């Protein structure tokens, strides 16, 4: 199925969880947060939240910045 991760299209296996996606992408967990279709996913729920066709996933972490 097709999903989008940080604005880029990606083809993944149906039923992939957030946990699975993070492992697939080898994302460091510390100071990282995930939103799916604008909803912030709690870390404790990563294993339970299954992605669906067309889902928009955002994976963020702190970056350099002071103000806009």
């Amino acid at each position, binding site marked *: 199925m097709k999903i989008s991760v940080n604005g880029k299209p990606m083809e993944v296996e149906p039923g992939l969880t957030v946990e699975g996606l993070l492992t697939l992408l080898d994302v460091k967990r510390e*100071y990282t947060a995930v939103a799916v279709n604008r909803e*912030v996913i709690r870390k404790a729920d990563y294993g339970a939240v299954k992605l669906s066709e067309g889902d928009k996933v955002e994976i963020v972490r702190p970056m350099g910045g*002071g*103000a806009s």
Partner: protein
Amino acid sequence: MYDTNLVLGGKEFTSRLIVGTGKYASMEVMREAHEAAGAEIITVAVRRVSLPSGESILDYIDTKRYTLLPNTAGCYTADEAIRTCYLAREAGLGDLVKLEVIGDQRTLFPDVMGLLEATRTLAREGFIVMPYTNDDPVMARKLQDAGAACVMPLGAPIGSGLGIRNPYNIKIILESVTVPVIVDAGVGTASDAAIAMELGCDGVLMNTAIAGAQDAVAMARAMKLAVEAGRLASKAGRIGKKLYATASSPLEGLPDWTS
């Protein structure tokens, strides 16, 4: 001189200079500048990870030593800013947030309507909200009433280096609210930071003035000294301004030089 700490949502800080993490020539320079500034709070943006995920800015910030202050830079609506704060909290960055709701791309002036709405929501959700606002005393009071832990009026547009353009409004803001007042944005050099503190502000937040200086580490130290000097001067109680001279030596006991 005995001084009180800066208190934000129950957390106490001795340093009154808050610094950023953007625009540094290198991560090493940033780390040295943070050290030279004597800062305790460091603000960070929240952005998409680059994939594959490599080096992190937090490799250069000792999170045991510094308090991280995630900001909502780049958010143009209350909704975006609120979601960014939730992301920051879930990322483990804490609940202290520098709230920005930007209203205009060219000036980066705040959208105060969105700012007020986001402040109210986030304060209710337990965040310690530090809103970046304009130098409007009425809005400052509304933000306080909405639950802001402090108010952060701009001295001048973000990154402009124009200094404190309306010191009188900053003064009125100081009289209008009981929460700390931290000048956020516009500082260009050390005297600007000193002026903010001399006016009675509780702190100064800056990024570009340090990161963009030719010698960022030296400027960081200059800013630390300026904030401390301004704070001391503010507490010491300056003399009044007068148009004419007042001699500081006694007139009595002058020798007679007449022939």
